[in-house]
């Protein structure tokens, strides 16, 4: 009978150990939740994230494809050089005239080096082009972000002010968020080995500045503002009042808050 008690004791000890691990997990989760709140409000002194709702919208008709925004973003945010690391990039769509009897011509899409150095002349003769457009791309600020949902440690999170942020000290570099972002907005930084994406230049906007890309855009294609604190003649309010707008891949249910004016159906 002695040994049976011993077995029972063994099982009990194992169960206690398991309960201990679970308890520690619970405690750490609570601690992490508290920390996260602190992180999301970690702007400069006096910055209150709950009192803002930042948004960027794009007027495609105004983009000239100069690529200054891409360059400014790379410099401002120390984005690694190289043709496959971008927090923002520009796509060029060239839609050729349809052949007789068809509704749509060929569509040519490119983004050489993310559009950072502008675009080479189109190889298509001018008279064959129906439309062409430049489309700046960046984080779509989803309200049901698949990246936030899929991050296994909660390193990616929705800030109360509308930004979707990444805590690089917490990211384990699994890449799941990169896979789940339908817009290709994320990449794994080869230096920090963590996921990276547009933060709306959080370090600037929390200090009353505009994101770098907005600041340098010569055509004012990128419009940025605070939905909770509209200024007189607010550009965002004006944008919504004067344009019919669209979002990218709305059928996926990610609820992108980013809006575009002047998009074409070919843009994904």
């Amino acid at each position, binding site marked *: 009978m002695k040994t049976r008690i011993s077995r029972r004791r063994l099982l009990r000890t194992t169960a206690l150990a398991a309960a201990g691990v679970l308890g520690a997990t619970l405690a750490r989760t609570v601690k992490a939740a508290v920390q996260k709140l602190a992180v999301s409000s970690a702007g400069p002194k006096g910055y209150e994230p709950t009192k803002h709702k930042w948004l960027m919208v794009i007027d495609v008709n105004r983009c000239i494809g100069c690529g200054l925004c891409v360059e400014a973003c790379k410099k401002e945010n120390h984005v690694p050089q190289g043709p496959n690391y971008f927090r923002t990039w520009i796509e060029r769509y060239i839609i050729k005239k349809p052949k007789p009897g068809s509704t749509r011509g060929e569509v040519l*899409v490119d983004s050489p080096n993310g559009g950072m150095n502008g675009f080479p002349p189109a190889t298509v003769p001018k008279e064959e082009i129906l439309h062409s457009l430049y489309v700046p791309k960046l984080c779509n600020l989803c309200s049901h972000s698949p990246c936030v949902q*899929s991050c296994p440690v909660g390193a990616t999170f929705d800030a109360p002010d509308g930004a979707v942020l990444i805590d690089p000290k917490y990211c384990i570099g699994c890449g799941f968020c990169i896979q789940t972002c339908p817009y*290709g907005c994320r990449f794994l930084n080869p230096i920090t080995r963590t996921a990276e994406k547009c933060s709306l230049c959080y370090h600037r906007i929390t200090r009353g500045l505009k994101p770098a890309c907005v600041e340098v855009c010569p055509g004012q294609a990128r419009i940025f503002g605070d939905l909770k604190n509209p200024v007189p003649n607010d550009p965002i309010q004006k944008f919504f009042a004067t344009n019919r707008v669209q979002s990218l891949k709305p059928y996926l249910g990610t609820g992108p808050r980013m809006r575009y004016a002047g998009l074409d159906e070919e843009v994904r």
Partner: protein
Amino acid sequence: MTMEITNTIVQVLPRFEGYVYPNEATVQPLWGVLIVVYPYVTGLVAGAFIMASLVRVFNVKALEPVYRLSLLTAFAFLLCAPLPLLFHLGHPERCFEIMITPHLSSPMAVFGFVYAWYLMAVLLLELWFDYRCDFVEWARTQTGFRGLIYRLFTVGVTDVSEPALRLDAKLSQVISIVGIPSAFLLHGYVGFIFGSVKANPWWGNVLMPIIFILSAIVSGIALCAFNYLVLGWVRRTELNMRCLDVMGMFLFYALVVDAAIEALDWGHRVYEAGESFQILQYLATEKLFYTLRVGQALLGTAVPLILLGLLQLFRTRFAEIVRKRIYFASAVLILVGVLAMRWNVVIGGQLFSKSLRGFMSHKMEFAGTEGWLMAGALMVLPFVLLAVMINLFLSTKLRTCKRETTGPLPA
């Protein structure tokens, strides 16, 4: 094909076709061969466990000779399962965050719990209860390092009285019953990780977890048959043909169900022909021609189906040696086919752009974290562990407890 022609890009790096988002234009896919190995290994674990549970839960007595081998196979592979994940992480030193601060809306966060549950509460316990009587016996009779290991494994519990052994058998069975849904959970969640990615039409599919579970069962049974045959040849012992035939039968029927569900998935995709159909069709027919059509469909499914099907129909007409060779060939083909299936899912899903306008290409390196060498080493490691375990726990020199429900390897 039309899309390929219409979406010719103006300026593009040579390894890409069409337009891909700049962040996707990487030399290596984000999830490389390590993430191919990971679901393959966990699938083998789940399948080998289901195989073992056929004996305990469903009372298939004919499979008794491979019961312990199946459990040890599952155990050896489970111990290696987290390694590819760990090596793949950008920050492996932060891996425990996934367990201590899990973000519960992420299917990946469940990994730690599912893994710990399966290892600690299912496999280790089932093995321990099954081996307890033997450990007590071997701890008494064996000396030296071997004896020390057996003494450690008894964890001080030396009661081998009849009621105690009855309790062991009962607990073992309970754990087996709990283990079946656990095995489904272990591998189903891996399928869910891929199936839940709605951004990727190749992955985002409600059938994905089911396909993963079924292919896991098939690969697990194939692995057990492979191990049993190889062990018999290495030890030059007589194999139990009844056991092999029954294993072949289960392998055949599992493969039929697996092939049927995968065919249903294909049929559904083709009939639905949604927005992504064109690009996926090109992916399946051109980009993944060798691994999908040849590796997975022909060699990994059709050929073993025919071979094993023939044995179901005309078993008595084949000599034992022919049957053994057919089982061996089928097991190897299935193992290769399921590996190809994992490759097609993981790598295939990263060969096309989420813009649905272009393709990336993939060339595996030899050395490096995501290279052939690493993948090979991670595939060999569980077999090395298994060899050590077989030497320790399935040794022909050791006398096992005389119990009806457990038996040593081949009679």
